[in-house]
């Protein structure tokens, strides 16, 4: 398994879920911008599941040396890379914030995804799982920079799925909705709309096994976003969402 964004609690929960289900991997490649935290996770899965892994540094804000990834090979890619940044209220006119959000969620991430997608394509097998966001379903005033980057990522995954279909590679898009993670700690989230990483991991694993194309972590989000997507623009623009 290849994991992009290995410090993500959802990614870690997914790895544990897969191992609990008895999946075996020759090696798990843990890509991360935070070596210390990820090494702790690597030791953790070694203790818990006797699972070997390798921690590989990847900082999307820096120049990427692809030669380091040459030996990385697997049948499953899990991408949980993401950066929420400041919402539009605080961060809209802060260019650094805007760039970082766009780079990490989309522009710098896609070439990395492509690098691995190519490997999958040549092997003619495997699954790519990408964590996008419900924020990408429609731009809303509160966080549309993040939302637009995720919308682009959703479109990318959709196109990739289409492109890789007859090459026997499956692409799964996950739209998590609110989640109880580092990214949202301290935010006033409605508990009924918020999933725990473990819960999310179980849903994602299930969707992966069933070869679904797009899945919301909590079904309620599918309904909420359907409503939001279908509000006519002349009304939508007046709403404070």
């Amino acid at each position, binding site marked *: 398994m290849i994991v992009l964004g290995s410090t993500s609690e959802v990614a870690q929960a997914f790895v544990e879920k897969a191992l609990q289900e008895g999946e075996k991997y020759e090696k798990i490649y843990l890509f991360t911008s*935070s070596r210390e*935290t990820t090494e*702790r996770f690597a*030791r953790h899965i070694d*203790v818990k599941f006797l699972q070997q892994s390798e921690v590989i540094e990847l900082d999307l804000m820096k120049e990427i040396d692809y030669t380091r990834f040459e030996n990385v090979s697997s049948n499953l890619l899990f991408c949980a890379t993401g950066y929420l940044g400041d919402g539009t209220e605080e961060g809209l006119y802060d260019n650094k914030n805007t760039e970082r959000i766009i780079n990490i969620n989309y522009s710098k991430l896609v070439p990395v995804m492509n690098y691995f997608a190519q490997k999958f394509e040549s092997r003619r097998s495997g699954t790519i799982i990408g964590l996008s966001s419900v924020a990408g379903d429609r731009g809303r005033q509160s966080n549309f920079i993040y939302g637009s980057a995720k919308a682009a990522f959703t479109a990318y995954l959709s196109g990739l799925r289409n492109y890789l279909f007859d090459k026997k590679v499956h692409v799964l898009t996950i739209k998590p909705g609110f989640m109880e993670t580092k990214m949202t*700690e*301290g*935010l*006033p989230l409605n508990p009924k709309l918020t999933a725990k990483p473990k819960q999310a991991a179980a849903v994602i694993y299930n969707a992966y096994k069933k070869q679904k194309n797009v899945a919301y972590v909590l079904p309620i989000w599918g309904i909420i976003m359907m409503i939001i997507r279908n509000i006519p623009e002349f009304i939508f623009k007046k709403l404070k969402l």
Partner: protein
Amino acid sequence: MKPNFIQKVTNWGNFPVVEKEMKSEDSFKKIKEFVLNHNEVIARGNGRCYGDASLGEHIFSTKKLNKFISFDRLNGIIECESGVLLSDVLEITVQQGYFLYVTPGTKFISVGGAIASDVHGKNHHSEGCFSEYVIEFKLMTENGEIITCSRESNAEKFWATVGGMGLTGIILTAKFKLKNIDSAYIRQESIKAENLDEIFRLFDESESWTYTVAWIDCLQKGKNIGRSILMRGEHAFQHELPQSMANSPLRLKKKFQPTVPFYFPGFVLNALTVKIFNLLYYKKQSKKEVKSFIDYETYFYPLDFVNDWNKIYGKSGFIQYQMVIPKESGKEGMKKILETIANSGNGSFLAVLKLFGKDNPQAYNSFPMEGYTLALDFKVNSKLKKLVEQLDNIVQEFGGRIYLTKDSMSKSSLTNYLKNIQSPKFVSLQHKRIINNN
């Protein structure tokens, strides 16, 4: 949306509820920042203590310190971060033939909490407290320094921290020993006792058993006072087990786990329903003595079987009152306690009696002392404060003490037994309450 770390926090008894800052970090560097930037910090694990011990002005939640570090499968030594739950430990170790030396009545507590409370189990008389098996732990002190504490290095801090209720710092990681088991099952004998005299005699007779505990019907009066069922147990060997269990002795089947969906309305638990429950529980076992094999989860953690069982007590919450009375005057003291409860009509749904063995004088902050300990649940209501006061007076009269992990309203002269913990940095609401009452 800006993060706001002020939130409603409460522990397992749902009493008291406070609005305080609570944050969780997994990098030691950030934890250090948290400690240095705040006054009055207290660590909190899984919030399974009952009262106000892990509540404070600035709560550091260890729930993100949830990784294992190493497991020496040959010698049964495990090291993990402090937010790892005992249930996580058991998930890995039982299959490998190892069990916790000491476990409390729930497996959903954190390892850090087990050390800070120096928890005891049904085997205190034979195997002592959790600290007996702790090899070392890393502690973040008030200046953000990380020190390794063991019996050899920083021994003073080691002993102050075990049972020290988090007042010496934040426990980050811990290394501890596990015991060998041959199966995941317990050979159990449960024996009915008519009254207090009989149950005390049974405890004395059962001293050679590793685990002993009694469920007690605390609403009985007169000659029936102390009516109870003693449950004594040993880890079963594979060869003793019936065939159905012996085939895969270290693996338990997955069980259905129900969840209490909402807070029960206040009237559900009252003196009458508790009385009926206790009667049924006592009558369920028709024979005087029953021998059986049961899995470790049923034996050690019967309540963990129902998720969120604390909601049964309703929104006003409940307290757990656990005291110990020295052995010499144990019978007399217990009798007085049980009489007081029966007369108050404030029934306890779950009352557990246990005989503690000798304490470890080095672990001076730990709760257990040689004697009888009784743990009771009481729903919070207007009459409770007075009952607690009466019970406190009896415990004091007999020279006993109160378990801080479960305390939220006992008097300070019974709860101020901690030593060598003075630090203006690490302060819990409980500690403040105790000090201010003095």
